[in-house]
């Protein structure tokens, strides 16, 4: 049973990080990865939030490799 407790704790931490990342991603980071998402509707951002929590390592890697936005 210790195995299950450990696994669930790891999953909990993973999702916690994912939640923080996803909040940043759907509000700011998504535009870096995909031009079409830059002007995406609020509902679109809500819709991709759960997937961003679950798959945050993929998106994080993609956002890191994307060119930075030029302000102004």
């Amino acid at each position, binding site marked *: *049973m210790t195995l*299950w407790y450990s696994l*669930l704790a790891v999953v909990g931490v993973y999702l916690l990080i994912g939640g923080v990342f996803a909040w940043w991603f759907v509000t700011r980071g998504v535009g870096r990865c995909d031009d079409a*998402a830059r002007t*995406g*509707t609020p*509902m*679109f951002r809500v819709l991709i939030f*759960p997937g961003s929590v679950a798959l945050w390592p993929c*998106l994080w890697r993609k956002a890191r490799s994307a060119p930075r936005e030029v302000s102004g």
Partner: protein
Amino acid sequence: MTHAYRAVQWNKHKRTYDALIAVGVVLFIALFVVVGLLQHEGDHAAHPVTLILRATSTCAITLLTIVLAIGPLARLSPRFNPLLYNRRHLGVSTFLVALVHGGLATFWYHGFGVVDPVTSVFTTNANYLPAEGQRWQSWLHGFPYQPLGVFALIILFLMAATSHDFWLKNLSPRVWKNLHTLVYLAYGLIVMHVTLGFLQDDVSVVYAGLLGGSAAVIVVLHVVAGVRENIKEGQDGIANTEWVAVAKIDDLEDAHGKVVCLKNHERIAVFRHGDKVSAVSNVCAHQNGPLGEGRIIDGCITCPWHGYQYRPEDGQSPPPYTETIPTYRVRVEGRDILVNPEALPPGTAVEPALIHETVGEAGDA
């Protein structure tokens, strides 16, 4: 040119389709519960929560069975293509119904103890491995079947959460396709989850029969569709060898296609990629998706339905995939794109036609 993402690309047909799904699900669950309440009274009466759990599980399995049946049905007859085109919403509905079932079951059966409900699902019954000398029938009879449902629910969640086109593009079509192929694993887990639940709860054999029948239908449909496609392969062919003007250069946006229908009703997808033009069959080798409505992503024509990819110059899926589609000879004369309607064997390499610089800068609207 790119389009801003929206949550759902609504149109009249999709609204009607979604309304039918919603009404169907609510009616199914309501009827199931009402009939259950009327059928058993007194000492044999089932608790309403138990009935809702059974109703949502039966509904979710029915929806998933329909989802899995649509693919081979559409391969057997184009009449089912509209269902295939709208299948994503049915898949999301399946997840939502399964989520209600899973959430309710977790809190109803595990929400009143000292251990938190989610942990309790995995730890209450620790009979994951057979004890020494235990017979396998006895082991199966006590196997913790609820975690199987949780794993299936996680897969359904991942599929529902990544059903938007944003994910197809940003996860890459290959990863997206592999992720969504997990639906078959989810179906297997659900079958085991329900079967073991039947064994342990002594549920009516009618349910067991319906579940077995549904699984059998799915298997048979996939086999029949596959066999029929193999037989049909190679029988089609067009004798007409005249070149046909199918589009103007200006009609084609870069990395996008156009579907053209020839006199013999053959549909061809003509794609512009940079200063080149290629033509392939409009029919995806996977489930007959309309390739011409897709886009070129990572240098490959990408089916809008399930992300299957083909190189425009030879109609072959990039390795390690092996799907192939017919290609067509194509050439550019002035601003006209001409296609030879004689389909070449699937996977045949064809030199793309070059758009000369003098033709103009069309398609960058």
